[in-house]
């Protein structure tokens, strides 16, 4: 199965056009069907909840907290690498944000500093991985502890209220509600998705991301800079983590030093459930986007249909295991 998502319409003149289209988008069609099936299940289980817009407003307000990271993280996984440090980078970015905010009372400046901190932390990951050739899985376990440690040492474990930002223009741009219900963070997640899609599918950089993950030897022989590509995907993911941390904290008007804890597995499951290959070289923005909402909806949905919250993890487990097995089998069949 090719990962080169969505490149123009298939050629309808040819008889095999439809089959070819089905093959090319099999994983995307699959994840859409899974999302649809889950939605039907919820609608049948609790029609009054799932026919009102409140539940969707809730999904759209919380899913971006990890979805915004899952999208660029997809690129990291496509290059064949892994990043486990983004939850700590979310918190580290916010540490910088709150420090600058309290020093200058300027949230815009704080935001710039926050994004720069995330970018730098991500860049460091990429640099360590490409310079010393240590597996990213291992390095980012280390930096994950390191940045969390930095935050704990500098905050003594105490949070900071961000009430001063509430209902400001800044607040409304990032976590306000359009027409009183549509969360702005959803707009930001869509923007991040569009940007990621454009870069992955329409820019030379994205082409190199796929090539590096697919066959880094051939990419290198053809003059693609493997190191630069990897450093960039880690840096972008770090910056996205800082943005997601900022949005999550603004929504609560509070910065907890533990920010990001609990997002690790949600985010990774979104990437893998979305059809991105752990071996690299394949993955789509669309898949991760839809999968984020599947992951984001299950918790609330389960409670809404009348099961206890204890079912959440069991159902996560089933959906992830079954979907990933089906994806693998389908991918093999297609080739």
């Amino acid at each position, binding site marked *: 199965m090719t990962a080169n998502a969505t490149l123009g319409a298939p050629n309808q003149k040819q008889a095999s056009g439809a089959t070819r289209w089905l093959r090319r988008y099999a994983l995307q069609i699959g994840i859409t069907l899974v999302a649809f099936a889950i939605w039907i299940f919820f609608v049948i289980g609790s029609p009054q909840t799932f026919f009102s817009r409140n539940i969707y407003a809730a999904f759209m307000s919380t899913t971006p907290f990890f979805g915004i990271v899952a999208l660029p993280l997809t690129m990291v996984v496509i290059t064949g690498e892994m990043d486990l440090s983004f939850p700590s980078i979310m918190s580290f970015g916010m540490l910088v944000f709150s420090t600058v905010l309290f020093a200058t009372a300027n949230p815009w400046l704080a935001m710039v500093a926050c994004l720069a901190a995330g970018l730098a932390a991500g860049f460091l990951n990429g640099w360590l991985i490409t310079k010393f050739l240590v597996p990213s899985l291992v390095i980012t376990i280390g930096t994950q502890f390191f940045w969390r440690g930095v935050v704990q040492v500098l905050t003594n474990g105490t949070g900071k209220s961000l009430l001063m930002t509430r209902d400001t223009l800044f607040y409304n741009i990032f976590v306000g509600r359009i027409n009183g219900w549509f969360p702005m963070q959803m707009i930001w997640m869509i923007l991040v998705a569009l940007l990621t899609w454009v870069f992955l599918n329409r820019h030379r950089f994205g082409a190199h991301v*796929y*090539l590096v993950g697919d066959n880094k030897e051939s990419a290198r022989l053809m003059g693609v800079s493997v190191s630069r590509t990897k450093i960039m995907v880690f840096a972008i993911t770090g910056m996205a983590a800082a943005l997601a941390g900022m949005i999550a904290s603004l929504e609560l008007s509070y910065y907890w030093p533990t920010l990001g804890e609990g997002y690790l597995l949600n985010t990774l499951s979104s990437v893998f459930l979305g059809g991105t290959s752990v071996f690299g070289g394949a993955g789509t923005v669309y898949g991760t986007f839809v999968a984020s909402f599947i992951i984001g909806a299950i918790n609330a949905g389960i409670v809404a249909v009348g099961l206890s919250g204890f079912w959440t993890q069991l159902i996560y487990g089933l959906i992830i295991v079954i979907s990933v097995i089906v994806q693998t089998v389908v991918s093999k069949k297609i080739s």
Partner: protein
Amino acid sequence: MTTPALELVNVSKSFGEVKSLHNINFKVEPGEVVGLLGDNGAGKSTLVKVITGYHAPDPGGEIYFGGQKVDHLSMQKARDLGVECVYQEKALADLQSLWRNIFMGRELTTSMGFMDVKKMQAETERLMQEHMGFTSKAVSAETPVKTMSGGERQGIAITRALYFQANIIILDEPTMALSLTETKKVLDFIGGIAKAGKSAIFIDHNIFHVYPVVDRIVVLDRGMIAGEFMKNEVTLEELIERLYTVARTGTYDKSDGAVLKNLEVPA
């Protein structure tokens, strides 16, 4: 007398105590396909790595491209000079589409690095019909290359090299592990290189694959050129006979026709 596309003069390469190449004098004329034969460890890959700028030769060795001496050859410089390698395992990114493989690392862009996808797809479709012999409607520029046969994959890599105006295409065991019909396809592609007026170095240890498509055969043994034969001066049977001699003795017995070099056995 034409200027050789590539010429190595007195090139040696040592790794610490081990001397992998001894005073190699080697050239490739424009439009010539040279077969480089030799056993494992004969120095074929070291020689290729010198030509592609991966290894620097020992001091004293000289490398000329189109008659111009090139010092400090780097991989980038070699690429810029039109040297392109086709490795069986390293040539293509399997999961990616045909057009992404053709334009790998050399994507056509409009501005600010954004790709001209339509143009790359159209060029790929054209190359597929004109050079790669893909006529099936089931294959398009979007088809991932892992669905293609070994011969077709080599063809893609060779077509890619020609499309980007490579002057010297190095084929490292391009027929390894291929079936007879697939090997035939690859050999046809190699024939196409000479037709396009470009040079090729065809590395293999299978004389039966090399012989039909090359103009000249260079035999490498233990880091030295043990023999050099113009194809029209030697039959396949004679060549095989001589290769046996080389394998046994490290030199080739001084009878007729062939050019002899470096007869001393390394210590």
